[in-house]
C-alpha cells in the first residue's frame, strides 16, 4: 500500500501525468453518466432541434432533436469500450507472439516476424477500409470492430516485447530457473512476464489511442460502427453529413472534436509520463537521484 502511494506521489510530480489523470477521470465520469441519461441514445426527435447550449441542454441540441451532452456521454463510453477491446486483444496477440518468438527463436521466430513485418508494411488504413467495407454488417458490432483493429496493431508491440524477452532470457536468474527444472510455462509466467509488463502497460494506452483514432477515421467513411449508435466517430460524422456548420450549429460539431482531442492528449501524456517514470535514466533527471 505504502509503495503504491509512493509511486503515485512520484508520478504526480510530472505535470503531464497530473493533467492527463484529471482529464481521464473527467472523461470517465462523463462516460459513467451515460447510465443515468434521461434520453435514449439512438432515437431521434426527443427534444426541440437546433437549440444552442443552455442550462437545460449543456451542449445544445442537434438538428435531429437529440441532446448533444447526453449523446456525448454515450459516445465517450462506446469509444473507450472499442479502444479497450482492441488494446486487450492486440496485447494478447503481441504477448504470445513476442514471448514465443523471443524465447523459442529459430524458424518460428523468423516466420512470426515476417508475418508481423508484412502487416506493418501494408497500407493498414486502406486494408482496414476495404475489409470493413466488404464486411460491413460484421464490423458493425463493438467486439468485431475491436478484433479487426487488434489484428492489425500487434506487430510493432510484439517486436518490442520480443526484444525485451531476448535480453531477459540471457540473464542468470532465468538460467537458474531452467537448470532447477522449472517448467517452461512457469518460467514464462514467473520470470519473463514481470519484465515485459511495463512495456505492455504503456503500449496498451498507445494502442487505445490509435484505436479511437481509427474508429473516427472509419466512421468518416461511413464504415465501422452502425452510424446511429453514438461513438466519437459517428457523432462527428453525423454532424458533418448533416451540414452542422452551414446550419450554424457549431456546438454539434465542436462537442465531439473537443472531447476527442482531450482524450487523445490525455492518453498520450499518460503513456509518456508513465514510460518516462519506468525508464530510470529519465526518472532521475526529473525526480532527482537518491529518492
Amino acid at each position, binding site marked *: 500500500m505504502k509503495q503504491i502511494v509512493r509511486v503515485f506521489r512520484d508520478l504526480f510530480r510530472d505535470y503531464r501525468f497530473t493533467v492527463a489523470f484529471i482529464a481521464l477521470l473527467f472523461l470517465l465520469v462523463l462516460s459513467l453518466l451515460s447510465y443515468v441519461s434521461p434520453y435514449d441514445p439512438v432515437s431521434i426527435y426527443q427534444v426541440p432541434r437546433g437549440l444552442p447550449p443552455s442550462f437545460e441542454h449543456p451542449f445544445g441540441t442537434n438538428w435531429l432533436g437529440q441532446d448533444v451532452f447526453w449523446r456525448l456521454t454515450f459516445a465517450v463510453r462506446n469509444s473507450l469500450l472499442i479502444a479497450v477491446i482492441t488494446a486487450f486483444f492486440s496485447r494478447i496477440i503481441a504477448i504470445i507472439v513476442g514471448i514465443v518468438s523471443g524465447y523459442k527463436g529459430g524458424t518460428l521466430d523468423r516466420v512470426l516476424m*515476417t508475418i508481423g513485418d508484412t502487416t506493418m*508494411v501494408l*497500407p493498414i*488504413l486502406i486494408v482496414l477500409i476495404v475489409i470493413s467495407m466488404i464486411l460491413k454488417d460484421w464490423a458493425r458490432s463493438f467486439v468485431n470492430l475491436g478484433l479487426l483493429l487488434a489484428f492489425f496493431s500487434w506487430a510493432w508491440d510484439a517486436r518490442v516485447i520480443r526484444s525485451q524477452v531476448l535480453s531477459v532470457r540471457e540473464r542468470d536468474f532465468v538460467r537458474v530457473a531452467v537448470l532447477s527444472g522449472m517448467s517452461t510455462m512457469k518460467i514464462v509466467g514467473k520470470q519473463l512476464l514481470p519484465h515485459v509488463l511495463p512495456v505492455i502497460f504503456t503500449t496498451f494506452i498507445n494502442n487505445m489511442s490509435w484505436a479511437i483514432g481509427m474508429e*473516427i477515421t472509419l466512421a468518416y467513411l461511413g464504415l465501422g460502427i452502425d452510424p446511429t449508435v453514438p461513438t466519437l466517430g459517428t457523432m462527428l460524422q453525423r454532424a458533418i453529413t448533416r451540414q452542422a456548420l452551414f446550419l450554424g450549429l457549431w456546438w454539434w460539431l465542436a462537442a465531439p*472534436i473537443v472531447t*476527442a*482531442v482531450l482524450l*487523445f492528449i490525455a*492518453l498520450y501524456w499518460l503513456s509518456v509520463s508513465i514510460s518516462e517514470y519506468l525508464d530510470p535514466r529519465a526518472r532521475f533527471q526529473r525526480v532527482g537521484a537518491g529518492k
Partner: protein
Amino acid sequence: MNFIKGYLIPRLLQYFIVTFLGLSAIFFLPRLLPTDPVKQQLQQYQTFGVYIPPEQQEEMMRTLRQLYGLEGTLWEQYLNFWKRLLTGDFGPSFSRFPVSVSKVISQALPWTVGLLSLTTILSWIIAVIVGGIVGYYRKRWMEALDVVVMIIRPIPYYVMALVCLILFAYVFPIFPLSGGIGIGQKLSFDLETILSIVKHGTLPALTLMIVGIAWQFQSMKLIVQIVKSEDHVWYAKTAGVTEKMIVQNHVIKNAMLPMITQLGLQFGGIFSGALITEMVFAYPGIGWILYDSIMKADYNLIMGVMCISTIAITTSILLLDLIYPLFDPRVRYR
C-alpha cells in the same frame, strides 16, 4: 561484393516476399468473403427498376464476371491477377466507365506524389533543424515549444485536417474549402494556374506538415539530448574542440541516422495520413480517388489503388533502406 551479398540481396529478397504477400492478401481478402459483387451489381440495377429478361441476365453476369476478373477457378484468377498486375492493367473503372483504372490512377498520382514528397521533405528538414536546436541548447522558453508539440503530437491526421479545414477555410476563410485547382480551370503552365494550385494545396500541406513536424521534432530533440550527453562529446569539449566543430562533427552526424530510419518506419503512416487529408480536402489525388471509389463501390478502382499503394510503400521503404548505408559507415559492409 560483401555489400551486395550481405546486404543488398537479402534486403531485395525481403522486399519481394513482403510485396508478394501483401498483394496476395489484397487478392484473397475480398474473395474469401461471402458477398458476390456481380450479383450485387445486378440487384442494384433491379432496385432501380430496370427489367432484365432472364437470358440477358446470364449474358450480363458473364460480361460482369469478365470485367471483374472473376472467371474460372480461384487459381486461374490468381494467375490472371498477376498477369494483369505486371502489365499494369486493372480493367475499366465502373464509376468512370470506360476510362481504365490505370488512367484514373496515373492522373491522380502526380497530385499525391507532389503533395507527399514536398510535405515530407519540408517537415523533415524543419523538424531536424528545430528539434536539433531545442535538444542541444535546452533554454527555458523552448519548454513552451515542447508543450505545444506534446499537444499536437497525439492528434490523428483526420481530426487535425478537419480542425484545419474548419478554422482556416470556414471560420477564417483564407483558403478554399476543397479541390486541387479552381473549378473549371484547365491544367497549364501559366502563372494563374500555378498560383491556384499553390493556394489550394497550402491547407492540406499545412495539415500534413504540422503532424509530421510534431512527430519528428520530438525524436530529433531526444536523440540530440542523448548524443550530447555521450562520452565522446564530453571528451571533445574538455579537449578544447570548438562548439561549432562538436555540433558539426559529433552531434549532427550521429543524430541524422536514427532520423533517416524514423522516416522509413513512419512512411506507411505518412502515406495513410496523406490519403486521409486528401479525402477531407477533396484534393484530387489517390486518397480522393479511393474515397470516391468506396462511395460508388467501384471495385476495380479500389483494387488498383490498394495494389499501387502497397507497391509504393514497400518500394519507398526499400529505397530508404538501400541509401541508408551511404550515411552510416557502420552498416556499410555488415
